[in-house]
């Protein structure tokens, strides 16, 4: 049994079809997707670079994260909602796309990495984030986030080209 019929049903639904066939709505949603990407992944990049120890090393990571969190989440919501609508309109194409499956795996790892950070190291962030060199696990979290988000962006671009 495969999930393909479900994905086809999503794609062929009234909403999916109207997005796909509209002249303006699809480009408009894709534009929102790119703007959301620039804001959320852009700010995530700055935070990751701080965790790795590349930028703003005299400022506490917790301070930077707190001040940027609302914008990061705002950008992510834009990206997630617009991405959901794009998926709705071409779900069956996505089902058959290796790039899309990889993108979802990378996205899952982005989420797991963030969740792990928030539930473990992040809880005691005030204790360790004034050190000059951050704990190794914190730096790994930054690297992992950079790698996984790059994977999401690259596989997302690949999905749009229908390349496998």
């Amino acid at each position: 049994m495969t999930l393909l019929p479900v994905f086809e049903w999503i794609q062929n639904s009234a909403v999916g079809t109207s997005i796909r066939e509209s002249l303006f709505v699809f480009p408009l949603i894709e534009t929102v997707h790119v703007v959301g990407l620039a804001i959320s992944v852009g700010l995530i990049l700055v935070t990751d670079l701080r965790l790795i120890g590349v930028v703003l090393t005299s400022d506490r990571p917790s301070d930077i994260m707190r001040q940027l969190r609302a914008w990061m989440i705002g950008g992510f919501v834009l990206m997630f909602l617009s991405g959901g609508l794009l998926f709705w309109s071409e779900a069956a194409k996505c089902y058959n796309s290796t790039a899309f499956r990889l993108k979802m795996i990378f996205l899952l790892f982005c989420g797991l990495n963030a969740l792990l950070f928030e539930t473990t190291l992040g809880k005691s962030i005030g204790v360790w984030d004034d050190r000059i060199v951050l704990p190794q696990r914190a730096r790994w979290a930054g690297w992992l986030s950079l790698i996984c988000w790059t994977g999401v962006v690259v596989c997302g671009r690949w999905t749009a080209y229908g390349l496998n």
Partner: protein
Amino acid sequence: MSLLPFFQWWDTSWLGEAIRASTWAFALIECFHLIGMVCLLGSVVVIDLRLLGLGMRHQPVARVASALEPVTLVGLGTMVLSGVMLFSSEAIKCYQNAAFPWKMLFLLLGLITWFTVHRHITRLEDDRIGPIRGKLLGSLSLILWFGVALAGRAIAFV
């Protein structure tokens, strides 16, 4: 005088031909273009939010700006290099594209603003920048850079 010969020259250059001849080169270069965009816009957004008083208020403008300047420049360099490659592979298409001149206009204004006013003002102490000047500069910078991104996205659609 028409700019067509300039676009034709790029379109028939070895670079353009080589990218067109490959099935995946264009998509790969676009990935670099997107990653460059994340670096450029991410760092610019943080600095401009600071100028607007909407984020990073615990840090002085000059500290945020000087820390993120290399990120902006790496992003800009990556975007320009990959952008020239993408352009050369479809220069004639760009010549006929209604969105392309807008993108170039926003890019030119963005570059001029960044390398002159933006870089100059973000090096000053917070008191000397002033809230109104900071807000004007932050808004202008965001409008110009997102203008580049939006017009760039539109090239594929118009």
